């Protein structure tokens, strides 16, 4: 079971737009909310009201600053969850077969009843996408909301991952990345979607759209500049006398 499938029928995943993400963490909250009551054991918190609270999350938003060669620094919000890799190293290291990649849609899942909580899959993941739930002792990870996307009890517009549904900036997109005609594939092609850590050889399914270059201050944009010109280049009156006198010293 922990052998990876040669090929999956579909390749479902996310495309995350670093240009439009505003870093509001709504996807983090929506993910925690949905997955607290859906697939598998709830996402526990430790010491939630104490001095050092922490908990299990399947999605987290980092923030980075990028300093270009010229021009101002840019602030990039960076949501990160499981990338459902084609060559997922977390799956092959699993001793029990609890970790697996689905043939039908490529989603990487954990069968929690078979998980012994050894943590080796979390060590094998370069992205930090897996977190051991400290209350249940089993590994938790993004399920791509497998209990939403095929759920016919939900209205059709809700049959997407909770993070995608909730994103107010529409920075998260969900679809089949193996189908070149799908919206997500077109988006990746148009915007130059990137793999994270390609040198790790994981072949991630999720793609990241890099931030677009920022506008510079061209000459014609500075419409107020003529009105802000100094009225007098040379100081007059007393200040002028002071300036000339001090200059002679």
């Amino acid at each position, binding site marked *: 079971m922990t052998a990876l499938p040669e090929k999956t029928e579909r390749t479902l995943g996310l495309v995350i737009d670093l240009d439009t993400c505003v870093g509001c963490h709504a996807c983090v909250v929506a993910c925690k909310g949905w997955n607290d009551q859906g697939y598998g054991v709830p996402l526990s918190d430790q010491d939630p009201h104490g001095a050092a609270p922490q908990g299990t999350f399947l999605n987290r938003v980092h923030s980075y600053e990028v300093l270009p060669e010229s021009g101002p620094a840019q602030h*990039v919000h960076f949501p990160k969850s499981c990338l459902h890799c084609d060559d997922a190293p977390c799956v092959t290291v699993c*001793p029990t077969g609890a970790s697996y990649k689905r043939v039908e849609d490529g989603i990487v899942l954990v069968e929690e009843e078979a998980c*012994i909580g050894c943590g080796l899959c979390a060590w094998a993941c370069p992205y930090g996408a897996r977190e051991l739930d400290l209350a249940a002792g089993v590994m938790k990870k993004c399920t791509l909301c497998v209990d939403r996307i095929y759920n016919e009890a939900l209205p059709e517009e809700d049959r997407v991952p909770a993070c995608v549904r909730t994103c107010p900036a529409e920075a998260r997109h969900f679809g089949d990345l193996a189908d070149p005609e799908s919206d997500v594939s077109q988006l990746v092609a148009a915007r130059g979607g990137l793999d994270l850590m390609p040198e790790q050889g994981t072949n991630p399914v999720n793609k990241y759209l890099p931030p677009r270059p920022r506008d510079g201050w061209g000459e014609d944009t500075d419409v107020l500049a003529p009105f802000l010109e100094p009225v007098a280049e040379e100081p007059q009156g007393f200040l002028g006398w002071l300036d000339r006198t001090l200059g002679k010293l």
Partner: protein
Amino acid sequence: MHPAQSIILFTTLSGLGFGLLIWLGVDPTPPTGWVAFVFYAIAYALALSGLAASSFHLGRRDRALKAFRQWRTSWLSREAWLAALALGVSGLHALGLLFGIALLPLGWLSAALSLATVAATAMIYAQLRTVPRWYHWSTPILFIALSLSGGALLSGRVEIASGLLLLTGALQFWVWYDGDRRFARSGTTLASATGLGEQGVPRALFPPHTGSNYLLDEMVYVVARRHALKLRSIALVFMVLLPVLLLQLPMPHLFGLLALACHLAGVLTARWLFFAEAEHVVGLYYGKR
């Protein structure tokens, strides 16, 4: 990586135990009767207490036996199978020796299985591309070298143990030297981790959460690195130099035992460093590398 006591004890003790089983297995004139019983009892006590310690690293110990299921792909699963087979075959060999019957081919098989067990234990770490310090051929070689020298020491092979200890010490020294350069050589940086390298030089601005989490506790362990040089020196002195000196003294039983105690303390220190110094690439996302 977080240096958990359970896996430090596991790799150290079972490494010693299987090392002793290797030497007992290849011995052309193996001990018999009560002497064989004592040697095998020591080897089993070490190997089994190591394996028992490893189970304390599990989130769900009640399901530990499921770890035997995926031997086709998982080194952890292979390690479990090889350990069980090595202990089983060694047990048969030992049973013969207790009654004075030495079935040498059975001994060779038990030695080969014990060697493979140590190699499989090391491969659990060496397979992880996410930890460049471990993702290297030297990881299984060092584990095997330590196991062989410890086993030689335990089985009272003075000349072999002295030679192996010196070789292992030299290898360990080089592994530390080279290991310090492997993260940079791996080519994984914050730029490749975020894909932002095209735009400029990325820098972690603020973390996704104010507290800690499993990832930071488990894989971004940075405490006590500043003492690394001192600890490396202590490890090398206790693991190699003191045992080699003590082995050259008369009264082999007294000083041999002392050499063994020093070696064990040294290996435990080196194993602590093996985990504590290992840098996981996920630390890059948190600006910690």
